[in-house]
């Protein structure tokens, strides 16, 4: 869900502190230690959840076999399941979770709107439109075809929104909403006329991490890794932008350049994540809310914490998706929404909905 919201120049709570940190290059030790402690704790939890997720699935595999499969691969059925099915899936959950969470943190900072999420740039609608069009034209057969269509659609949509709405956060939000409406409407019309296309789309449209182990994932995962690094490098400059354009100009930040780079990063992160897993919208919305408090107004810490909590959330949701039904799976996007809704309400009630 996207809502055009506050775009005033007033500095939100906590942002001035982050900005002063950015300006001075220092931070209060008392704040940094809990943040760093939380981050380290989060990383430990992430590793633990990832290991557990490799042990959970339709076929019971003992913890000993899981360890053996990772350290002493023999090619047995259990080892194949661990190494070739579950481990790639866990890696994908980590990458997609981090990508969506960081993209969410970036777009909320950039749009200065706490309800913004990566889909605001039309990425999801663009990917869905491309899948529909590609399927209708016969390009989206198979995982590789769908991956290519989704990447092309999400990038083109985001570029269009960024080109039209780059001048102000409000314009960006409105352009994204408008393009999403147009693409969704046209794609829906096509799907109603083409039952086979509808058939392809309905499975893609519910985000899932299942069965991606055979898809060509190297390029999207590499793109996510590079974009995550880019987000960290850009985060200090975003601290100033979070205060509003006037203040950012005063602090000497190159507003246009920072915004353009941020838009590119959001596009790459959410586009790649959507391409490989389909739409999983809640992660990009909920995670920045959950880590806002520990980040205490600092964009770099917000991004770092998002980078850790996003994967944890997605790994937990993915484990749930595997065990909730006696046979088959619940798509992870459904589980994420189921978990994310109450968490978002809790976070907003507990900490408020202020943006950075």
């Amino acid at each position, binding site marked *: 869900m996207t809502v055009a919201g506050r775009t005033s120049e007033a500095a939100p709570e906590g942002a001035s502190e982050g900005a002063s940190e950015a300006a001075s290059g220092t931070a209060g030790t008392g704040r940094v230690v809990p943040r760093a402690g939380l981050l380290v704790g989060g990383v430990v939890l992430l590793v633990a959840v990832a290991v557990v997720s490799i042990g959970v*699935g*339709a*076929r019971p595999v003992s913890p000993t076999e899981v360890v053996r499969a990772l350290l002493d691969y023999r*090619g*047995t*059925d259990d080892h*194949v*399941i661990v190494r*070739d*099915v579950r481990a790639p899936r866990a890696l994908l959950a980590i990458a997609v979770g981090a990508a969506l969470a960081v993209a969410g943190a970036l777009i909320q900072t950039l749009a200065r709107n706490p309800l913004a999420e990566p889909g605001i740039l039309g990425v999801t609608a663009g990917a869905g439109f491309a899948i529909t069009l590609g399927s209708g034209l016969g390009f989206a*057969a*198979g*995982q590789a075809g769908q991956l290519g269509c989704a990447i092309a659609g999400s990038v083109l949509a985001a570029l269009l929104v960024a080109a039209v709405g780059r001048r102000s956060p409000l314009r960006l939000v409105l352009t994204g909403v408008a393009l999403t409406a147009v693409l969704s409407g046209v794609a829906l019309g096509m799907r109603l006329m083409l*039952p*086979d296309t*509808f*058939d392809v789309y*309905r*499975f*893609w449209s519910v985000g*899932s991490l*299942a*069965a991606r182990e*055979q898809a060509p994932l190297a390029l999207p995962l590499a793109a996510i890794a590079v974009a995550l690094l880019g987000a960290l490098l850009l985060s200090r400059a975003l601290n100033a932008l979070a205060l509003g354009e006037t203040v950012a100009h005063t602090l000497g930040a190159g507003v246009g350049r920072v915004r353009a780079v941020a838009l590119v990063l959001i596009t790459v992160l959410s586009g790649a994540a959507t391409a490989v897993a389909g739409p999983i919208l809640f992660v990009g919305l909920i995670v920045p809310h959950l880590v806002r408090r520990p980040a205490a107004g600092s964009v770099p810490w917000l991004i770092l914490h998002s980078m850790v909590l996003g994967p944890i959330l997605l790994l937990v949701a993915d484990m749930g998706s*595997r065990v909730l039904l*006696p*046979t*088959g*799976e619940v*798509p992870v996007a459904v589980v994420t929404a189921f978990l994310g809704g109450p968490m978002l309400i809790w976070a907003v009630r507990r900490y408020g909905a202020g943006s950075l």
Partner: protein
Amino acid sequence: MSLRRSSGLVGVVALALALTGCGSSDSKSDSSGKGGTRVFAADNGKIKIPADPKRVVATGYAVPVMIEADAPLVGISSWKRGEPMMSKKDLATYKKLPKVAGEQARETNYEAVAEAKPDLIVIGVPAPVLGDIDVKRLESIAPVVAIGPTVPSAWRELSHKQADAAGALKQFDSVKAKYEAKAAKLAKKYKNVLPQIKMGHVGAYGESAKGTFQREFGRSWGTNVAEDVGAKYYGEVKKKGPGSRAVSEYPSLEELPESLGKADAITYSVNPDGSVPEPVKYVMDSKLWKNLPAVKAGKTFPIRYTEAATYGSAMQTLDAIDESFAPLLKR
């Protein structure tokens, strides 16, 4: 048309069956012959129909049956999924006949049906899907009998019933006899090989995007014609449901070794052109597939035309099975 493309429709049918517990109708028709009519037992009740219909409209699964049986058709629904399995003559008839409905039951064109002036309408869709059709409106045009699919192997009884309703049993029985003779000949040909082999089947209606595969057991789409030749498919679904869910299931790919590990040989569905559909390819590209004893032994057999639901189309399935199983005779 690929098998994959029709998976959605089959899924809808299976889901609809599962939701309503639709079963097969009583296949025994009650002929009274009074005033040129008879009472016919169908999914929608006991219907008074003409004893010798002259103008028949057929939809859904009834379309290929009626064409094959030379029923006096004046209108049909679109039935693209059956086109690859029709003979040249039947395909020409199919293309020539006026289309009074689309692929989906809800795409029925009532005015076109009325314009065809039928004296009998045979609807070949599952009973739950009848809700998408304004049956009362159709009944105002002509008597309506609904004879829809149930367990995949039941196409034999259902097609007989559909042809019976249309008064076209003569040609139907002729094709049926040819099929049975051919199946018996092949059963004899493979009698020293097939009954001793424990077989499993991977179907093409699974959804690879979900990380699952379709495991078909006896009496399912991919297995029922092979069973007529003597193939023995082992195992059964973990939790039986109505319709096709009674004979096939969709386990996680992780369960492939457990599901097919005991099979001596594995058959799998392929498209009419021999290409491997995406859901089957997903399974075959997995290392778990390559670890299966039957795969290691090289005993895997593709089967084309697994969607056959008429005796004529099933003859093609028999040919495909014979072609695929031929290497077994050399071993």
